[in-house]
């Protein structure tokens, strides 16, 4: 197995258009970036049976979280002889595995040199580097993320931060030592700039296939979070993909892309879906008049105003839900606590999110990204201050 990341286009800012290619058994899987890794819960994309998932053609990669099914070790699925792709029916997709849940990172500090602690359905469990690698050898994902010593304290000592960087590097060495494995290394260093740089430089020296930046919990706003991650990003080689956790809203994605992030997780989509919301934002603002009226990014289908709204969730959307169902029906399904509500909302939201990423890639390709982003913030952002903050980052 080998992986290849080609930068198709870069701009003088940090914008990147890339293509991740994985070759395994003469089969080639390609993921154009910026892009998303579909979030999973217990190895399924929440609410979507495989036929509904495949109605979202732009999904190319899936992020599987090991802590969801590691309450028993070794997990029973390691007895399955044909690998994780087949077990989870993700043979068409690039499968990433990370031990922790990017959408629900309950930080725990009780890691040791030997293991990390994870949250499972049946409580906290410990995973050692050896056993993790053993599972990965059996599961054979396309890419896996090496173990990381996360820090739970808000203000850790320098000693703790250094230890976190050292442990994480040691576990990374364990992981890439194994032949053929495509490993993403995790950048740590908490909020300490020097340590973040050391972590980035040391990780970049190793034979990793890409990098993971975990912004979740580090800053109180996305802007703060990105600022904390910036020293890491600035010390990464350009020719490898960067995955970030914790950036989910459309503004977050645009912000991340403008800082040179290639891959994002979709836990935000699940959160919005479970809350009964449908995405209606768009990077493609056609009518210039629109841009003077501030618009909604999401609509809540719980709103009683939709009870007799015979329009689709989003006019013109080509997803299964919009082609077949009305807002009134989805409102009814929520109102009666029927499971089809989240099926239809997830189908739409994930479809829409993949389309958003496609629009981002096209706008970079056509040198329109900055213009589109400016329009986007003009139309959607709440509050002038936030708008100013975000657009200043992007337009700088």
């Amino acid at each position, binding site marked *: 197995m080998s992986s290849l990341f080609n930068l198709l286009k870069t701009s003088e800012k940090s914008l990147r258009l890339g293509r991740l290619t994985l070759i395994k058994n003469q089969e080639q899987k390609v993921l154009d970036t910026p892009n998303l890794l579909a979030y999973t819960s217990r190895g399924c994309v929440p609410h979507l049976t495989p036929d509904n998932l495949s109605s979202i053609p732009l999904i190319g990669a899936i992020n599987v979280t090991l802590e969801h099914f590691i309450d028993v070790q070794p997990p029973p699925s390691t007895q399955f002889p044909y690998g994780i792709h087949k077990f989870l029916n993700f043979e068409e997709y690039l499968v990433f595995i990370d031990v922790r849940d990017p959408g629900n990172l309950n930080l725990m500090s009780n890691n040791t040199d030997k293991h990390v602690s994870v949250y499972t359905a049946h409580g906290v469990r410990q995973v050692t580097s050896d056993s993790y690698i053993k599972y990965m050898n059996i599961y054979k994902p396309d890419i896996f993320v090496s173990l990381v010593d996360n820090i739970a304290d808000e203000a850790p000592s320098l000693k703790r931060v250094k230890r976190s960087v050292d442990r994480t590097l040691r576990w990374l060495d364990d992981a890439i030592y194994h032949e053929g494995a495509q490993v993403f290394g995790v950048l740590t260093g908490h909020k300490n700039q020097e340590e973040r740089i050391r972590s980035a430089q040391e990780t970049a020296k190793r034979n990793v296939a890409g990098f993971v930046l975990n912004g979740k919990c580090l800053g109180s706003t996305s802007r703060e979070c990105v600022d904390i991650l910036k020293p890491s990003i600035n010390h990464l080689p350009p020719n490898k993909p960067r995955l970030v956790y914790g950036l989910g809203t459309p503004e977050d994605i645009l912000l991340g892309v403008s800082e040179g992030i290639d891959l994002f997780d979709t836990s935000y989509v699940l959160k919005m879906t479970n809350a009964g919301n449908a995405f209606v934002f768009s990077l493609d603002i056609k009518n210039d008049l629109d841009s003077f009226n501030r618009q909604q990014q999401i609509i809540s289908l719980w709103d009683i105003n939709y009870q007799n709204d015979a329009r689709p969730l989003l006019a013109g959307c080509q997803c299964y839900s919009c082609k077949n169902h*009305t807002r009134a029906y989805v409102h009814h399904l929520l109102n009666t606590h029927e499971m089809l509500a989240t*099926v239809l909302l997830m189908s739409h939201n994930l479809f829409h999110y993949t389309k958003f990423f496609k629009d981002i890639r096209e706008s970079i390709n056509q040198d329109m990204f900055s213009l589109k982003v400016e329009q986007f913030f003009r139309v959607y952002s709440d509050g002038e201050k936030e708008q100013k903050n975000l657009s200043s980052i992007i337009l700088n």
Partner: protein
Amino acid sequence: MRSALTLKVIARCSTTKARVGILTLPHGPVDTPVFMPVGTQGTLKGLTTKQLEELGCQIMLNNTYHLGLKPGQELIEELGGSHKFQNWNRNLLTDSGGFQMVSLLKLARITEEGVEFQSPHDGSTMLLTPEHSMSLQNSIGADIIMQLDDVVSSLTTGPRVEEAMYRSIRWLDRCINAHKKPESQNLFAIIQGGLNMDLRTKCIEDEYKMILKYLLFKEMIKRDTPGYAIGGLSGGEEKDIFWRIVNFCTDKLPKNKPIYCMGVGYAEDLVVCSALGVDMYDCVFPTRTARFGNALTPKGSLNLKSTKFAQDFEPIEKGCNCLTCKTYTRAYIHMHATRETVGCHLITIHNVSYQLRLMNNIRKAIINDEFPSFVQKFFKELFGGKDKYPIWAVNALKSVNIELLS
């Protein structure tokens, strides 16, 4: 009365009363005997209508009581009726709403006018009359609609049973008068199977006579509704009485009309009742049990929550060609059962597929005139040894010339 259906019987079993028909309804053909899954609130428990079509489902149920509460009559009418509302272009059947009043609401009281109940919203007293039930069902727009009947618990005895039967006939007349769309919706009369438990002590012939008297069959048949339902039989009554009443009804009801046995859905019940000549069934069981992690197979039900499936890499049912069995192992579903909605969807897909396949196999066996041997095989596979066969089923099948124990 006017009918918006045709029933063409295309095969009859030469041993039993089983028959295969094509029931043509306003939204297309239905192969009978048919099992109709229940989509109570205008949706079948997490499945898309596309998935239901792919499973080969030709007709499903909606419940009038639930749709009448949410979204409510006015909205469902404004939104173009239930087919359009849920984007289901095949057939629908709605019940009268009365059964839920009796089963869900403790404070239901029945008078000549209708069923009185307390609104679950504000506690005010509301009344469901035959006219109101028809009006609701006309707004929902299902292809088959049911009369409001006077439901009594199957454990009720004495004159109340007789009263209910007479009243059901009076209410049928009111329903016929109030029904606004006979050209597109087929009203079925309900034969109240409500059991007089005293009957158990008497011999079968006497029982028949009493039922005949109580049910006033001829009166019902005189109304000439497009189809007939046997109601009030799924309330936990003795199975040995249940089959006798079904058997009696299929003997007495007109042969050119569909016969619908309400609330029946266990596999062995479907096989036995089909042998007795029933054409249609509905039940929440396959979809409800799926939500508890139970998958139906010809060998019985599997509780996929059980850790014994954690390393079982077989499909739920070998040879089943549903999406679930083609795609996933029991071990995979075990990880999700009752924890992720996907686990529930996958088992629901399989269970609906199982029920529809069972009906398909029943139809095939009747068409090939192999139904008796099909029944033998079915019972052997489901129950294992003959000592485990339920006695009521043995008796029921004996009445139509199948000797299960020989």
